[in-house]
């Protein structure tokens, strides 16, 4: 079994971030997009924790708590928005929400 170095964590984090970004860009369902955003955030969290351990600096772990807190708040607001949009439009297809078109 090979050694699990910091590079592995970085690679996994990049893969997770890319999957999240592509999910945000390509999917139409608002909830899926929402989950993709969460995945991007958590890929960043993973990186923070990995480097925190690698460098022996606890600041990275402290920052992760902040990110989780902000993400929780974001979920609360974001889901409330999605529920409201669903009530008016009977849909959560993000392509139908294009009132700001120029």
């Amino acid at each position, binding site marked *: 079994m090979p050694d699990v170095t910091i590079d592995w964590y970085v690679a996994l984090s990049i893969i997770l971030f890319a999957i999240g970004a592509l999910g945000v860009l390509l999917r139409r369902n608002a909830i899926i997009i929402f989950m993709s955003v969460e995945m991007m955030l958590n890929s960043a969290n993973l990186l923070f924790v990995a480097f925190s351990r690698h460098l022996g600096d606890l600041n990275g772990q402290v920052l992760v708590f902040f990110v989780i807190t902000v993400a929780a708040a974001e979920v609360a607001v974001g889901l409330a928005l999605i529920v409201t949009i669903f009530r008016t439009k009977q849909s959560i297809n993000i392509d139908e929400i*294009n009132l700001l078109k120029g």
Partner: protein
Amino acid sequence: MRVITYFFMNAFNLAPLILIFPLIGVLANGLVGRRFVETDRKTGEVWSGWFGSLMAISSFVIAALLFFSLRSQEFHAEVIYLFDWFNVPSAGFRIPWALQVDTLSVTMMLVVTGVGSLIHIYAIGYMHGDPDFSRFFTYLNLFLFFMLILVTGSSYLMLFVGWEGVGLCSYLLIGFWFDRVDETGHPMNATAGRKAFVANRVGDLAMILAMTLTFWTFGSLEFNTVFQSAVELFEKGHMVEFGLFSASLGSVLTAVTALFLMGAAGKSAQIPLYVWLPDAMAGPTPVSALIHAATMVTSGIYLIVRSNVLFEIVRASGSLILGVISAPDLVAYTGAATALLAGMIAFTQFDIKKVLAYSTVSQLGFMIAAAGMGAYVAAMFHLITHAFFKALLFLSAGSVIHGMEHGHHEIAHGDHHDDGFDPQDMRMMGGLRHKMPTTYVVYMIGALALSGIVPLAGFWSKDELLSHGSDNNFAVYLMLALAAFFTAFYMGRQLKMVFFGEPRHAAAEHAHESAPLMTRPLIVLAALAALGGFLNLPYFTEGMAAANQHKPGGIFLGLEGWLEHSIQSFELTAEGVLHMPHTSVVMSRSVAGLSTLLALAALAWAFYGVYGKKPKTADERDPLQSTPIWWFAILPLNTFYMKGVIPLFNRLAHWLGYALDWDFWHDFVHNRLIRDPFVGFANFAADILDTQGVDGLVNGAGKTVRRLASVIRLSQTGYARNYALSILLGAVALVAYFLLMVN
């Protein structure tokens, strides 16, 4: 008692009141006068009219107090500082608002407020029943206010404020009945007002240039400072430095005085800017009397007399305009030529007020000519007497017009309504001496005074002026003497056509005398026109001159002894300038005798000669065009005279009056050459330059923005993922940038 003495000795503190009274009148009549008059016409008119008149009279009282104060302190001039108008200490630029109280300005104040008060009272009667009664008195008081600023100001800038203000009032009052239109629907009164305004602007431009040059040269616009430093500079013979170049004082002042002449030509209706004055008769008659005869039009003469120091320095320095003529000589010739030309044009006019208008132009020419010859006292003397008798003539003419209009109203109640009736046309009048006896007598006094019949006012002032002419400049004298002959002739013609013979129109038959409110001021003015000459009786012999030299206060040369404290004259010596006391001219008996004889001959010629057979009907030809002169019938020269001179002269006068003055000068030069291109340019500016040029630029800018926006807004798709993508790309770009920066 002490209070009274204090008032008489120290009225200088009261001087600002002379401006404040008319201003109160303006505010009162302008703000509440209309409501007063509309609520109750009868008492409203009394209150509105008499309040305005009272303000004028109060100013006159202040002027009289100033007169006594000046006397009590030996004519020593006072400058009463009120406040600073501009003050830029770093640039040394300071224009105080101050009143100049000296013998010259007090003379003008007395004339302006005295004649002004009488005309205000007359106007209460004249404007009776006019829907804009209180507006008229607002304007009259406003005019008085600005005219008094003009004459009391202690600097050229103050003078200019008044100068512009009276121009504005003149415009407002000429166009007072601005809604009246002629047969073609053209608003002729409004046009006349505008014409006066525009013609005056030409002169004003010259005034502004002259003031700029004065300030540049002397660093001040205050009369006292300018005159003092001008004399000092002249005595030292220094050049005037203008930064890059320098010029001699004589040539600088030649430019200044020539520009002053142009300004005076605009205001005082001289060649070539006189065209507005005859049209200005569209205004109500009290306006013609006050503004266009007695006061405003004389401000050009006041300007020249006030600047006498500058004119005399130019004369002493020998500087010439283009090497041809000196500025004061140009003034004299301009005045004399105007006097002659306008006197001739007055021959051919049928409108009672137009005759007087051209006569005013002609008389102003006399004054300008006198000022140009250095006879400043004679100019001021003629200004005063002219204010008396010309105001009298205009107001009497107003009384005649009033009478004719009433006569016309009376017959218009019958069945025949005559729309072509013109109450100012002298051909419609005739025989009015029985219908309007008071007006007839005062008109006669005014006309004889204007013609210069001894001992009425015009005789003394005109002949003092002519005596100066025969001493100083013979060519000018000849022109003026001829103009005086013409004056007597057209006044004789007018008297005969208006008052003598039989009525030539039903309106003249039914005319009747005007109300006492109008005739009483006429009687006062008639007394002034008759006795005004005694202000300045001349010395009749050398002995009298020697015995009475410099004894001010006497009846002989009273005005001269009074004015010489404001008017200096100079003589150039090898050492520089000497201030000379004013030298009195002994009235030349031959000049006075000749001019009186000429005037009598002209009156007789008009009365018994040309107009002996008065026109029987309104449309008969003017006998000036056909009748011979009876007393030439006994001369062998008769045939030559009748066939040659008279028709030639008639043709010349008609040519001057209609072809040269009207067709060429008014229609061709002013309307065709100046107005039409200007109107064309204005149309071009309005229709093409503005709508296509300026609007195109503005609209084009708007269109460009719109077009650009329609392209750019395509990027706003409204799809959230497009925005997300741009955020991502932005983030990647930022990261890439920082990575590159680190390495």
